[in-house]
């Protein structure tokens, strides 16, 4: 089962905040967040682990609720460079090695 992301798209002005949500029906080892610019490969932003550890981007924050298998990515004081499609990826505990991604959230930051 792929993780479910919301919203599908969001339009922001520079400096505004946004939250992207990701939920899974399975127990998870980790949640990954990536950003993809048009026509390019996804780039790693952050990984959140079972147990509370986080690794990744300094300017973008995220949370992971293990009990609910939910994660949120917080875009704070957005910059033009934040534009792109954001994907959450999940590694379930019952399928070692499997990394599935949600449908993505398109973020457009305008001046």
């Amino acid at each position, binding site marked *: 089962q*792929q993780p479910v992301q919301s919203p599908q798209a969001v339009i922001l002005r520079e400096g505004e905040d946004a939250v992207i949500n990701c939920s899974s029906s399975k127990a998870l*080892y*980790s949640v*990954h967040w*990536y950003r993809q610019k048009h026509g*390019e*490969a*996804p*780039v*790693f932003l952050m*990984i959140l*682990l*079972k147990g509370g*550890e986080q*690794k*990744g981007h300094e300017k973008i924050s995220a949370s992971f609720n293990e009990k609910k298998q939910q994660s949120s990515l917080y875009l704070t004081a957005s910059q033009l460079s934040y534009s792109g499609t954001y*994907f959450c*990826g999940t*590694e379930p505990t019952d*399928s*070692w*090695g*499997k*990394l*599935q*991604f*949600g*449908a*993505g959230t398109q973020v457009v930051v305008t001046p």
Partner: protein
Amino acid sequence: SQTIHQWPATLVQPVGSPLSLECTVEGTSNPNLYWYRQAAGRGLQLLFYSVGIGQISSEVPQNLSASRPQDRQFILSSKKLLLSDSGFYLCAWKYGESDTEAFFGQGTRLTVV
């Protein structure tokens, strides 16, 4: 340092023709390997993943297949392409541990005509 190579970058193939996309990783051993497909404006669909040589997990039943003939080589194949096989194909690798990120190749844009 580790690098991932994926080729070709673009490919135009007629319906019914075969397909072979290759992905190789350098600078690491026993990586997990992945093939994803991305239709225009859509999400990343996991097609196949492999946690070791000869171990292939298929996620989507279709006319594609994958093989891992060597530790750091992952091949995506089809005997006869369909129009619906068009898309952006991405190979990725990561270490087996769950606290490690995935690294993506630059992708192959396949157009079936």
